[in-house]
């Protein structure tokens, strides 16, 4: 099959499907004796991407594959299509989501510990229903609390290819009114806590690497 025809099929499939398609999905569109090679598909996808240059949409790759999406700079006009404004999420929900994204897998108790307030069931329910978060296991302590991790849908929704694309976690900031001696102590205790956390990360099989806070810079400060 020539590349022009292939391109049309890929274009059509991406627009018709309404979701991201990966190479495997695209190959599945063809008869068994006509399946295009991965390289050929990648070349065609690159062509398509280049041709979008001056258009109202672009080809993007997210966690679950390729999709066409309307460009961000057009949002002010596009958003007038809908009666309702795009949903705004509460800080409580975003903070909970951030903790799960950066510290996964972790329990509700872990989240409450860091946020200093209880996490409402409503928030957890919303995150699960949106399929941004799922239960990946249970911690082996009394009560066997659920361990939460983010999903591919979460990455897709926020336009991320992988967890590594998350904005880097900010450094720990000094609390100004505390003298330097004290802040040293603080950094030490924090590091212990981090070690424990990364231990728990290794325990469960979550494949993605976390964007870790840059410990080096903190060490230099000290």
């Amino acid at each position, binding site marked *: 099959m020539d590349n022009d025809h292939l391109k049309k099929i890929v274009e059509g499939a*991406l627009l018709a499907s309404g*979701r991201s398609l990966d190479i495997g999905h695209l190959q599945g569109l063809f008869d068994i004796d006509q399946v295009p090679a991965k390289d050929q598909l990648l070349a065609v996808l690159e062509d398509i991407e280049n041709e979008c240059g001056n258009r109202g949409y672009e080809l993007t790759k997210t966690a679950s594959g390729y999709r066409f999406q309307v460009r961000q700079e057009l949002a002010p006009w596009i958003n007038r299509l809908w009666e309702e404004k*795009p949903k705004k999420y509460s800080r409580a929900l975003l903070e909970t989501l951030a*903790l799960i994204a950066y510290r996964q897998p972790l329990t509700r108790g872990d989240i409450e510990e860091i946020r200093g307030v209880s996490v409402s069931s409503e928030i957890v329910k919303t995150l699960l229903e949106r399929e941004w978060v799922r239960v990946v296991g249970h911690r082996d302590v009394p009560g066997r609390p659920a361990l939460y991790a983010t999903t591919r849908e979460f990455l897709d*929704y*926020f336009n991320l290819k992988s967890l590594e694309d998350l*904005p880097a976690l900010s450094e720990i900031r000094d609390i100004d009114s*505390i003298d330097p001696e*004290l802040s040293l102590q603080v950094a030490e205790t924090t590091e212990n806590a981090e070690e424990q956390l990364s231990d728990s990360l290794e325990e469960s099989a979550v494949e993605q690497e976390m964007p870790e806070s840059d410990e080096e810079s903190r060490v230099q400060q000290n």
Partner: protein
Amino acid sequence: MALSTSANRGSMAPQTVPEVDPSQDIPAAELHSHPLQEEMPFAMIMGRQITELPKDLYIPPEALEVFLEAFEGPLDLLLYMIRRQNLDILEINVAEITRQYMAYIDMMQAMQLELAAEYLLMAAMLAEIKSRMLLPRQAVEEEEEDPRAELIRRLQEYERFKQAAEDIDELPRLGRDVFMATAKEPDRQSERPQPDVAMKEILLSLADVLRRAEMFESHKVQLEKLSTRERMSQVMETLRDKQFVPFVSLFRLSEGRSGVVVTFLAIMELIKESLVEIVQSESYGPIHVKAR
């Protein structure tokens, strides 16, 4: 545009007025979330304007609920105090705060007791810190961690994720900043193909059923001659939706003697199973058959 509501979201400085989820139900309070207009009332409480957040931890009781809604908990509130109001946690008048927080308890009965408990816990923590700072230091002092360290560690850790939440909120989001591009799909041509079944599968299934059934009531599964059962179905089909059908019309002479016998047996069986009724209005009159 959604982004315009957070002019200083990207900066590290906490906002003067934390954003409040507008969907949250905050009774008797009008909140606004513009960080620059400090003259605007932060909240209306019983007709009185609250123009700004408190400068320290003394929160007027009537405003407490609103403040609690505005902050994501005591850590958030403390962070705000430290960063914005240059609150020195060493200088807190713990006795005063404790007295005030205890007074809140009564009010809390009717409000969010659970949430308030977290603030009370913080007050207790601050009180503990303060009291330990005031005590004369003992010789074992070295081994003892500074009482503030744990609180500071938590504040710092919380601040990182508060920032991370804001960063995530800034990411281009599907349905707000970018949009899935779709076009109408071509007409669907294919339906899901029906499962294939081989006759052998049916026979095997029947064998299974019969084996199971034989165990209990072997007499039940005496299969009649198939032709009779089939003819029963055919007769039922003929009688369907009809009133009375002449008995003789059910027979096909072309089928010969055996055909007539099969049909007769089928009708007898149908009568026996109470599937049809048979009517003869007078002796030697025409016989009619009707599905029951």
